[in-house]
Structures are given as C-alpha cells and as structure tokens.
C-alpha cells in the first residue's frame, strides 16, 4: 500500500506506533502512517473516529502515550516547525472581538510573515467583502474561513486542516478545494479531514479512519477497484464490513 514512487523523497509526515489516550479512552493505538511531500491527502472517517486527535498529534499539541510522529524530518511540534506547519482547528480559533483583518494582522506578526500576506489570504478564502467585519458577527462559515486564512499566512510547507469545508456552500467548497490543489501543485503537503465522504473525490490520496484504526490508505480509483464499490462511501462501508467479518471469524 505504501509503494510510493522512488522520486518522492522522504515523506513529509511519518508516524510509527503512535498511541494516544484521551480521558479513559485509547483513541489511537499502534498507528502508522506516511504522508508524501506535496500531496493532498484526505483524512476521512465518521465523527469520533480520531481524525482531530491524529491531526493534533501531527501538529504537536496532543499529549501522546507512545510512538513517534515526525514532520519534515523533525519531531512533531519542534520549535523549528512552528512557522512551517499551518494548522486549522475544527472549531475556528480566532478572536471574536476583532475584525477578520485584525485577526490576520496579529497572526502575521506572530509568524513574522509580511503584512501583504494578510490581503492575499483574505482573497484566497474569498472574504474581501467581510474583511473589516467583527468575527463575532459573522456566520459560522465565514468564521471558519477567517480561521483557514490564518493558516495560509507565511509560507507553510505543511497544512493540517481539520474539517475546513464543513458548513460551507457548494460553490465555496469547490473554490477551496481548487485552492488546496493549487497549493499542493506548488509543493505544499496538505492533510485535510472531513466526515463527509463526498469530499473523497477531491483528494489524491485517501486515509480512512474508523475507531482510531486505519481502514485504508490509497487512491480513490485503487480503493474502488479493490472493493468493487461505486463511490467512496460504498468503499468505506465495504471495508468496514470486511474488517468486522475478519474480527468475528
């Protein structure tokens, strides 16, 4: 499954034997994953399957109980990675009592990114008309776009985006996926999570998660061929059935 082409170089993200416990629950156990540099990988799975936990581990904000997570050849969360890895949390983490532009200006100064990045990022998420509105008076979709724009400041080499397109209208969703593809074409590694299986069609590579276990790590066509399903959702159900019958037999 991990027979990447030889010219890919080392993976952008390498996870080996990762174990994460949250509360009394073991969310991830002995988890392995490689994410190729410059790829657009979709992390799909039902809610509660551990997508956010995995992403938090990759960004280095999740306390882990074992295993290793390496990003760009350094341990996750390393000081050296902090302006090279962009992260968008599932709940928008921006200041409600600032305007979109004021939020972005602040984060740009924290990152040491040029102030001109602010206008560029606002344009990339199509928020020009609301740039000077208070985030607290925005709709949920607008708010999450401000949060997404923050991750586009500077020149991140890896983008970890936790459900960035949830709650957005279809036109905007298509636009954002186009943006993600352009970034990947420029060499940025993107890991984008979603609990909506439709979004699978837009990713080069799919990582399917269920109850913290890796169900599949493949391209969509390969996945469809392997399961005989017509779409990602069907393939996912097929894989679940197979996994369950293996456990019970």
């Amino acid at each position, binding site marked *: 499954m991990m027979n990447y082409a030889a010219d890919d170089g080392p993976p952008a993200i390498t996870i080996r034997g990762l174990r994460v416990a949250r509360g009394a629950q073991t969310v991830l156990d002995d988890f392995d994953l490689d994410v190729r540099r410059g790829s657009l990988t979709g992390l799909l799975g039902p809610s509660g399957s551990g997508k956010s936990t995995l992403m938090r581990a990759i960004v280095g*904000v999740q306390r882990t109980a074992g295993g290793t997570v390496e990003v760009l050849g350094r341990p996750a969360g390393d000081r050296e990675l902090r302006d090279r890895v962009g992260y968008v949390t599932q709940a928008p983490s921006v200041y409600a009592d600032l305007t979109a532009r004021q939020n972005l200006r*602040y984060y740009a100064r924290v990152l040491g990114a040029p102030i001109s990045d602010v206008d560029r990022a606002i344009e990339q998420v199509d928020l020009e008309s609301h740039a000077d509105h208070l985030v607290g008076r925005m709709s949920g979709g607008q708010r999450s776009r401000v949060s997404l724009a923050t991750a586009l400041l500077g020149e991140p080499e890896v983008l970890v985006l936790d459900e960035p397109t949830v709650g957005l209208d279809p036109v905007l969703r298509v636009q954002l996926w186009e943006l993600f593809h352009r970034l990947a074409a420029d060499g940025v590694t993107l890991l984008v999570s979603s609990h909506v299986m439709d979004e699978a069609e837009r990713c080069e590579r799919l990582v399917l998660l269920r109850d913290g276990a890796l169900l599949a790590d493949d391209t969509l066509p390969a996945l469809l061929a392997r399961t005989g399903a017509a779409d990602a959702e069907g393939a996912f159900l097929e894989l679940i059935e197979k996994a369950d019958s293996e456990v019970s037999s």
Partner: protein
Amino acid sequence: MTPRITLATGARVLTQLRHDPRTIALMLVVPSLLLALLWWIYDGGIVFDRIGPALLAIFPFLVMFLVTSIATLRERTSGTLERLLSMPTGKLDFLLGYAVAFGTVALVQALITASVAIGLLDLDTAGPAWLLVAVAVFDALLGVALGLFVSAFASTEFQVVQFMPALIVPQFLLCGLLVPRDQLPAFLEAVSDVLPLSYAVDAMSEVQQSADPAVWGQIGVVLGFSVALLALGAATLRRRTP
C-alpha cells in the same frame, strides 16, 4: 521570547479592548466614582485621607484581575491559545503581552483616579503624587499575574468570577484598610504579612504620610509576587494538552 511577538500580543489585547468601549469606560471611570462616593460618606475628612490611597491600590488589582482572568480563560477555551503556542509564540510572549496591555490601561486608570482624588476631592498626601500612580501600576501588574495564573484552574467564566471572593476579598479584609495590620490578632497579622495586597496598601499609606516615602521595599515585594505568579502561570501554559 521574541519582542516582536510580545508587543504584537499586547497591541492585539488593546485592540480587542477598543472594540468594547463600555468596558473601557467602566474600567477608567468607576474607581473615580467610588472614591467620590467615599469622600461623600466621610465628608472628605481625615478618614478619607487614610482610606483613599488604599483604594487607589485596591482598584487596579481587582479590575485587572477580573479582566485578565476572563480574557485568558477565553484564550484557553476558544483554541486561540493552542493556535498561538503551535506558532512561534513563547509562553513569556503571551504572558508579558497581557502585562503590557493591561499595565498600560492601569496607568491611564491610575492617572485619572489620582487626578480626581487629589485635584477634585482634595486628598491630602505628604509624598509625591506620581508615586501613588507608580504603586497603582505595579498593583495592576499583580492583578494581571494573578488573573493569568487563576484562569488555569477554571473551565468557565462563572468559576473564574468566583475566584474573586475567594482570593481577593480576604486580601482586602486583611490589608490594613479596615483595621491597621499591627492591631490585627497575631495570627491574622501573620497571614496579612504573606499577602501581596498588604504591601501595596502599606506603600500607598507611606506615600500618604511621609514627605520622603520609602516604598521601594514594598514595591519590590509586590513585584516579586507578580514575577512568581507569572512563572507559575507559565507553567500552566502547555503546548501539549490531553
């Protein structure tokens, strides 16, 4: 720590405050109004001269404690703190950013309150008025440091507000405002000796009574408490959370 990020954080906190003019007005005006009320109650007499400076010490401590604890609790619960710490922000950048922002507000607050007390209400102080303002600013920083620390132990704004009667009111009762500290029962006097607000109020009384007040010792104690609380606060800021 990066000065660029510290200052950006301070400026950002002030910008947030600017979007909330009602809070600014309350922070700047209420202390003066309360002093005026006190002046009225005591008919501007000698009791007012004794209590006035103590209140100049208590207001900034109390007000900055409240705004800082709520503001940093919001950062902890809204995910903005997590995001900042996943960026190049150092823990000290975050803490000192708040100290810079609310220290500035405290300076303005103290200037207004001291001007009203001395100019309008004829508060009599033997020492220089600027020292009253200086002590008030150090006191505000103490409030900021305590608020930052306490916010780690609350998960809701209701809880944070309950820390006020728990942590501030005892200091208020024992700081020498109601009964001079040396007339307290021995045990309570010993307790008041280890509470930072006592030293701030002592410093204010010294400025009020002495033409050549020696307050740097007391200010040093207040500053020492602030630094210790900031260090404890830094320990509660975690990049990795469960």
